[in-house]
């Protein structure tokens, strides 16, 4: 697949044509979760009986090593629920595949924190969606704020440096960004902000919880001031239409530089697109991950030139490139039109249209009890992985 391909140009031009292996690979190890967050991207709760076995997971890691996938973002569900999770973490690191895993923190005991601080090439992301228990626990469930803070305390006490505090920005917590930053700083951790997606159970709460237009503008300014000291995983590239681009690569990496493996080995275009429409294949049925990544029809399609559609005539199209594919899909908007949170307001008419149909979920692992107090488990990778990213000029990488 490396032939007949133009060299040079911007990195974005290159990335849109796809890579031999993903840069950012999210791997949901299990749909099982002790929580049931209202905005869970993967509608997690119950374990899927078809979950990959330990041996099958090891084979995936072997393949990632051969493809030189430098690190994997592990999530779920709550990945630490798998009894073999710590083994798989060690196995992965021993095979030159670094691990960044997302957790709600319940199982990050003082002993586990000590163990983690002795293990190289492991990053821990603790999910926290409110800087106060009231706001956090309303979304993630009772006791989850305390659990996350305890996990961060345990990590800091064990000398684990640079844990990540992973926050999904919502209408309810958007005014707490400074407080989140303080929590991270107090624990020697780094703040990581990501975008609320209308994926999974997120579809049920998105209308009420996605930041307002004013909050989006404030967030953009806050992120610009914070610079590279706050991570976003390129989550907010749709905000680039407000002015200068945020640090990182500003493009949709789905199927190009990013993808997701789910607990049963299904491969989806991105972490926010667990739906049949974006299912590229299955690692057990299709002979492994590499064939799916390299040959699936869906990924080939995503790597071919895309039309800007209704956005083509917009002055900001070169900045935001139409925004997030998954956000459009799960809000029932056309994929070649504006993002539902288009900062130019270009999606307002479409969102208000009476005929808009939200696609039905194609799978759901929620527990029956999750309709009242829903929350979301730790979620991995949110996006493209391109922070930390060093913009280098000339012969080396430039950012568009």
């Amino acid at each position, binding site marked *: 697949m490396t032939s007949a*391909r133009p060299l*040079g140009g911007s990195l974005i031009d290159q990335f849109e044509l796809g*890579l031999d292996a993903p840069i950012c690979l999210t791997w949901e190890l299990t749909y099982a979760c002790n929580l049931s967050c209202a905005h869970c991207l993967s509608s997690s709760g119950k374990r899927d009986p078809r979950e990959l076995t330990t041996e099958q997971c090891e084979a995936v890691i072997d393949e990632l090593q051969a493809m030189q996938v430098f690190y994997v973002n592990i999530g779920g569900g709550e990945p630490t629920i798998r009894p073999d999770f710590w083994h798989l973490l060690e196995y992965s690191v021993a095979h030159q595949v670094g691990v960044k895993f997302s957790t709600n923190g319940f199982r990050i005991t003082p002993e586990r924190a000590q163990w983690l601080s002795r293990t190289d090439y492991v990053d821990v992301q603790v999910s926290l969606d409110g800087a106060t228990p009231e706001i956090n626990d309303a979304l993630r469930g009772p006791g989850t704020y305390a659990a996350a803070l305890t996990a961060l305390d345990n990590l800091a006490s064990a000398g684990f440096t640079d844990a990540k505090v992973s926050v999904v920005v919502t209408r309810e917590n958007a005014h707490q960004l400074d407080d989140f930053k303080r929590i991270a700083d107090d624990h020697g951790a780094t703040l990581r902000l990501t975008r609320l997606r209308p994926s999974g159970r997120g579809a049920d709460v998105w209308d009420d919880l996605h930041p307002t237009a004013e909050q989006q503008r404030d967030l953009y300014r806050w992120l610009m001031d914070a610079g590279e000291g706050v991570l976003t995983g390129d989550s907010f590239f749709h905000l680039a239409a407000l002015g200068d681009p945020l640090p990182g690569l500003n493009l949709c990496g789905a199927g190009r530089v990013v993808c997701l493996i789910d607990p049963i080995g299904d491969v989806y275009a991105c972490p926010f697109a667990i739906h049949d429409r974006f299912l590229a294949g299955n690692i057990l049925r299709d002979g492994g991950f590499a064939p799916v990544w390299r040959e699936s029809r869906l990924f080939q399609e995503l790597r071919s030139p895309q039309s800007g559609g209704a956005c083509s005539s917009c002055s900001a199209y070169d900045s935001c490139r139409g925004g997030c594919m998954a956000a459009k899909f799960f809000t029932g908007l056309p994929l070649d039109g504006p993002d539902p949170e288009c900062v130019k307001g270009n999606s307002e008419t479409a969102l208000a249209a009476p005929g808009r149909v939200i696609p039905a979920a194609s799978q759901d692992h929620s527990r029956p009890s999750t309709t009242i107090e829903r929350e979301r488990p730790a979620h991995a990778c949110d996006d493209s992985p391109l922070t*930390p990213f060093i913009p280098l000029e000339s012969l080396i*990488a*430039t950012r568009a």
Partner: protein
Amino acid sequence: MSMTILDEPLSLSQSVSLRPEPFGALAYNFGNRRLTFLKRPELVSVVQGLDGSRSLAEVLADCGIPEHQWPVFAESLERLIDAEMIERPALAGARD
């Protein structure tokens, strides 16, 4: 003082892996988790040729890089040193 980077025997940092890609290569430093994109196949050849014993000039010559382009390559290598992707062996030794 007349010694320049061209005279130095550079090497790829031990914690860095290179992954070839159609546009060049990705370089990932497992230590500081930094990812860098090498945008030109010629630069990838040069970086792969660094062995800690030959000078950068020798490697550039071996890779067939025309001499008038050496300053551009030298500048890129300086940046890769700043990004801790490439090491000056003397410094690496001093750090251990």
